[in-house]
């Protein structure tokens, strides 16, 4: 398997590594090794998980060049065996057919039906073992980053003989990154086993590390009876680590808050337009969000192999679908109710019931699965204790983008000008030649379209189902009212601050109380400033 040592990995080291690898798993003579490999493969095809583990242990012991490929294929679920003669094969799927390659024979067979091969199932125990073996194997090759990660994954799980090998590896290693990782691993071990002097120098080594295993090691050291000097130093380092953890904890909460806030803003900003600018209390706003989410699902069904593209197309798609639905609602119902805001509430409440049931009839009451593209899954690891989830980062910036776009439309386009004119003084605007009813329809469409875009974002976070909209409607109203009706900046600030406040209260009070506290705060705030954070000024107010 070590067929392609990297240039930064000298041959000498490679040989040493090989020897160490053998030391990890007591080596075997060559032909015996081949036999064990074959036996191991055979055990993989059995149903019992314990037999599979035995088989895998044999495979690993055999040191066959294929081991790593085999293990990762098993972990990824690409390892199958044929129904007929129980031969273990690698399989890749395309268009419902498989292409198989025999592990031993290397025979490639095209167009294999799904019935003639069976996947080799694994459970968590096996999965864990596989990952451990793969980490060890990766220690010896691959780019430095991966090797360093492999070391970090092993922290806290090392046995004494493994530490010895790591020490040898450390002597030979050239990459700074990997050396750093190895030093940390060795130092953690020294905290347990070394003499006082060694412990002290290990402590210096660990000074800046945030890895959880370091903290556990330090706590254990302090609880142990060691020399006062060591105790003192360890306590000091632990304190420093803890204060850094607290700082990063603060950053994490801030991120959580901004993320929660950005979702509130996305959900509410369409409402800020329909409610704030044209004075329609649109209870069906939540359902327009839902329509956006379903549009995302439909587009993803049409493009099953291009998740990223599907999401990108869903943004304009959802905007159009929701905007058109909004215009239809406006032209057929709301048009008759201008100037009677509370009656728009009742009619749109009826619309929301109809839309919900329509979705239930068309798409079934079950939730729909919307997958995330690669660039929206996983997280951005900043350090061992702070990582930010990708989907929320993307959604946060998406929210800012939507806000910016909407802001430009309202301030820089003629539509925006007309909308503002109509909202400030309808009669005067009409007298100046603004087609008020067309502007109404377009504004409502714009607000609805933004709701649809929010639906695309929400489809990445929560259920896509008939109840999606209901969960957000109340919060959206709170955000708009808190921010000040008719003010986009107010909505942005209100959403972000309510989200952040919620997340900072949550650790002390739990999720429910945090929400209640925020609601009570809004109620009291409205008493103090009845027009919200940013009241409308001038004649339009009131």
């Amino acid at each position, binding site marked *: 398997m070590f067929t392609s040592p990297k240039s930064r990995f000298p041959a000498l080291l490679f040989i040493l590594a090989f020897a160490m690898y053998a030391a990890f798993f007591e080596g075997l003579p060559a032909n015996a090794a081949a036999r064990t490999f074959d036996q191991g493969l055979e055990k993989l095809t059995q149903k019992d998980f314990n037999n599979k583990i035995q088989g895998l242990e044999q495979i690993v012991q055999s040191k066959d060049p294929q081991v790593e490929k085999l293990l990762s294929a098993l972990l990824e679920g690409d390892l199958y065996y044929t129904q007929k003669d129980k031969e273990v094969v690698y399989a890749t799927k395309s268009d419902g057919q498989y292409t198989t390659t025999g592990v031993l024979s290397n025979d490639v067979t095209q167009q294999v039906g799904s019935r003639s091969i069976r996947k080799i199932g694994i459970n968590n125990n096996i999965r864990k073992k596989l990952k451990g073996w793969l980490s060890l194997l990766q220690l010896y090759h691959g780019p430095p980053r991966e090797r360093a990660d492999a070391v970090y994954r092993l922290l806290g799980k090392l046995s004494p003989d493994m530490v010895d090998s790591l020490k040898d590896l450390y002597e030979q290693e050239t990459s700074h990154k990997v050396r750093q990782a190895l030093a940390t691993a060795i130092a953690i071990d020294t905290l347990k086993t070394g003499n006082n002097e060694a412990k002290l120098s290990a402590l210096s080594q660990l000074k800046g590390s945030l890895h959880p295993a370091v903290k556990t090691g330090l706590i254990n050291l302090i609880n142990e009876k060691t020399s006062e000097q060591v105790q003192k130093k360890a306590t000091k380092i632990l304190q420093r680590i803890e204060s850094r953890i607290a700082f990063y904890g603060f950053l994490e909460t801030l991120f959580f808050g901004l993320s929660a806030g950005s979702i509130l803003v996305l959900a509410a900003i369409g409402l800020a337009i329909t409610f704030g600018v044209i004075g329609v209390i649109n209870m069906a706003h939540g359902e327009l969000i839902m329509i956006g989410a379903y549009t995302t699902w439909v587009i993803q069904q049409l493009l099953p192999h291009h998740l990223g593209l599907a999401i990108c197309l869903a943004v304009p798609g959802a905007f159009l679908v929701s905007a058109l639905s909004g215009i239809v609602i406006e032209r057929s*119902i709301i048009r008759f109710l201008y100037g009677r805001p509370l009656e728009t509430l009742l009619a749109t409440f009826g619309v929301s019931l109809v839309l919900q*049931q329509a979705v239930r009839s068309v798409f079934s009451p079950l939730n729909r699965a919307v997958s995330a593209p690669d660039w929206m899954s996983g997280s951005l690891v900043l350090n061992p204790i702070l990582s930010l989830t990708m989907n929320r980062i993307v959604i946060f910036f998406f929210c800012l983008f939507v806000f910016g776009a909407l802001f430009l439309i309202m301030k820089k386009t003629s539509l925006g000008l007309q909308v503002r004119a109509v909202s400030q003084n309808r009669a005067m605007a009409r007298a100046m030649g603004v087609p008020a009813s067309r502007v109404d329809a377009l504004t409502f469409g714009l607000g609805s379209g933004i709701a649809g875009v929010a639906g695309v974002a929400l489809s990445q976070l929560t259920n896509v189902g008939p109840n999606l909209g209901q969960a957000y409607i109340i919060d959206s109203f709170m955000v708009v009212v808190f921010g000040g009706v008719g003010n986009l900046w107010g909505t942005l600030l209100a959403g972000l601050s309510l989200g952040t406040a919620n997340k900072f209260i949550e650790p002390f009070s739990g999720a*429910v109380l945090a929400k209640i506290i925020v609601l009570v705060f809004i109620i009291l705030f409205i008493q103090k400033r009845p027009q919200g954070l940013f009241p409308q000024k001038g004649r339009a107010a009131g």
Partner: protein
Amino acid sequence: MKRLSFIFDDKLGIPLLIALGAAMIMVPVLNLMVPETNFFHVSTFTMSLWGKYLTYAMLAMAVDLVWGYLGILSLGHGVFFGLGGYAMGMYLMRQIGTRGEYGHPILPDFMVFLNWDKLPWFWHGFDMFPFAAVMIVLVPCLLALVFGWLAFKSRVTGVYLSIITQALTYSLMLAFFRNEMGFGGNNGLTDFKDLLGFSLLSDGTKAGLFAVTAGCLILAYLACRYLVSSKLGRVLAAIRDAEDRVRFLGYNVETVKLWVFVFSAGLAGIAGALYVPQVGIINPSEFSPLNSIEIVVWVAVGGRGTLYGAVAGALVVNWAKSYLTGALPDAWLFALGALFIVVTIFLPKGIAGLIRLRKEAA
């Protein structure tokens, strides 16, 4: 006679009152006295169903009083209804005594279940009916007083007021869902046995409850009618139509609003208390903002600004809902949603407007 003119001036209210009075006497009689096989027999199912509608009608009237006459659209009246219901529920829970699953003499089942060792302070006194009866009115009124005082003093009006009443009911819903609150969480209060010593399972008690509900509705109707046809009623309408002008004329608008709001909350509380023994359960979903919006929809369908309209709206919508959930289980929301849309567009004055229209046309 003149003192009673507030009743007789109300042309459409009188038939409603007569109908209610007749129902109050006849329905229990037809249920208890007439044998089941007889055509005129009213089944217990129908009776408790209409008993429930009548409590809804009372609630709708409370909302109409503040919305139709005073112009305050409360999207949170479910709160007062729910609180009244919880007060009644707590009394009924305490009446269970040792008949609960665990046979604990004092603690309700759900507390035994969650290992509470003693009764929380706010549960004390609810074993006595007079105390519970006071609480049924007092708790909603107090909340309305505090909330209204804050809101009206700072002149929160219109949509803003509607939204914060919504926030109020939403936050109470979340709070009551918490099991730590001591109100039974999501399961709420249920498994009631008897009320004032009468078993809730017997038809006699149900008939009695129906009669009491109808009676309360008649009294509440008369009280509201008296209120709106008095001088105060004209001030209310004036506030609704031009609040500032009334203020400049020297009326204390805030105080008027506050007390009518409190009165309405008390009425909703009584409705809630009558509702609970008839449906047998009270749960935080009564506080859900959508429920409160539905109440407003009943009033709108019936016709805001007319008390009989509110009553009729509540009865019609709820009857339609009961009927449709049985007859069209898969599509009833379409029908209900369409009804709301049609009413708001074509019948801005609701059913009451329709009836009046016909009178004028004739």
